[in-house]
């Protein structure tokens, strides 16, 4: 499944949740996975979504590290 996190293209397994795409994004940037808990996640409309939010093909999410 292909999604975007902060404009970065992420390939992730089918059925992934927002937190899984973010973990992939953080790992690519050599940021510790433990910082996941400091993340606030938004959908493409700017709504806050939960870390456990299911993702769909082509979805874009935005991440703010608190």
């Amino acid at each position, binding site marked *: 499944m292909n999604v975007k996190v902060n404009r970065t293209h992420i*390939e*992730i397994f089918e*059925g992934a949740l927002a937190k899984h795409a973010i*973990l992939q994004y953080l*790992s690519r940037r050599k940021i510790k996975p433990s910082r996941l808990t400091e993340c606030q996640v938004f959908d493409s409309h700017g709504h806050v*979504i939960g870390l456990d939010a299911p993702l769909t093909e082509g979805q874009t999410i935005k991440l703010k590290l608190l």
Partner: protein
Amino acid sequence: MKKRFLLAFSAICLFSLTLLSTTKEVHIISTNDMHANIQAFPQLAALTDSVRSLYPSLLVLSAGDNRTGDPLNDIYEIPAYPMVALMNQVGFHASALGNHEFDSKAEGLGRVTSLAHFTHLCANIHADPALGIHTRPYQIFDVDGIKVGIVGVVQVGMRGIPDTHPDNCKGITFTPVEETVQQYKWLRDQCDVVILLTHIGYDDDVKLSKDVPWADLIVGGHSHTQLKGGEMHNGVLITQTVNRLDCVTHTTITLDDGKVVDKRAENISVTHCTQKNKVVEEMVKFFSNNPEFQRVLCQVEKPFTTYEELGCLMSDALREETHADVGFINRGGVRYETHDAGPFTVSDVLKLDPFGNDVVEMNLTGEELRQMLLSCSNNDTYGPPCVSGITLEYTLDKNDTTKVKNVKILTLDGKKFDLKKTYKVATHTYSAAICTSPRKDQGRDLNIQTSQMMMNYLERRGTINYAGACRVKPAKP
């Protein structure tokens, strides 16, 4: 005397006006994606009681995914019964089916729906009656003389079923959401208020709103979207809160002469609610002392004395239960180091593997697997992963000994591993997410928790002995 007469006359006029006025309100407390957060129920119950004291005809709705998220609920003797009992006590009127309502298969859903005092609404499910799943497509509630029609729908994924393991939907078919909802347009003529209780996600709720101008409100779930109260799209008010009962939505629908003239919604925090319903609090305490957690799954012949031994057990469970060639988990996922000889209980499994990760299955070449294991070694703070079906030799980076420079895969008997061959590999969601190495197959979430898989494995084995097991070693210089 004249003053008294005027006062009495004014009072009579006011009373008459009140009688003549046909303005009425429907009040709704709604939530979605509670995901078995039973600990929040004493506050939810107190909050609901408080709103109900103001509006006795309060409707309480859930947009689905009530379960899956806390083993206290999900592995109860009747899976998900604690949530149903608590929702009964709070006084829920209806719940949509979410994709996770199917996680205990049709049999589990049948038991849960038969024990609920509220209605499970799902218009697009078509289940064999023999499965005993008690749902209705819609229900009309009489709220102080106002007819409120509610239709439920669940999301349908790429495989034509909600997002759950395909085995969970055997004997059940689903029809597309939009097409199904249109079949209930007639409710507009029969009811004063029409509500769609959906578990399809915010984006699809917005799309749906274009096709259902005849609906007043969509109470949505699935995408865990925190809306600020509600949003008006195409004349339809849409509400949704994030998940796990962080807050609920209070919606007020105002009718004048039987016509909806105003719709508004606000969020109310559950987390910050200082009041607790004592009865519900006692119920939560009862469910928290679940005897199921002490159930013995198998006997340990010789004690576990290292993380590696317990990691071998966890990765073996993954590999064997999925019939994969190779299993692996990140070393940080092994949460304790020792376990005495004797009984291994459900509680022991949940302490060893507390994160609620699901199993991920993928097909990888030997080289893709090698790179994935190297990536896992460096992106997990605890070093090389625990493996099953293979052994692993690793070399540390001389310049930075916190980094693994290389890994070499060997067969269980120490022979060369074919890097060109394709293998079925099982890991879990966290490990798959932190591995950044390139691979053609990103894999699939099997919607089965690794802890559940380990319980199945241990029960099947009866006795286990991992004393001295060591599959990951530094390479010889």
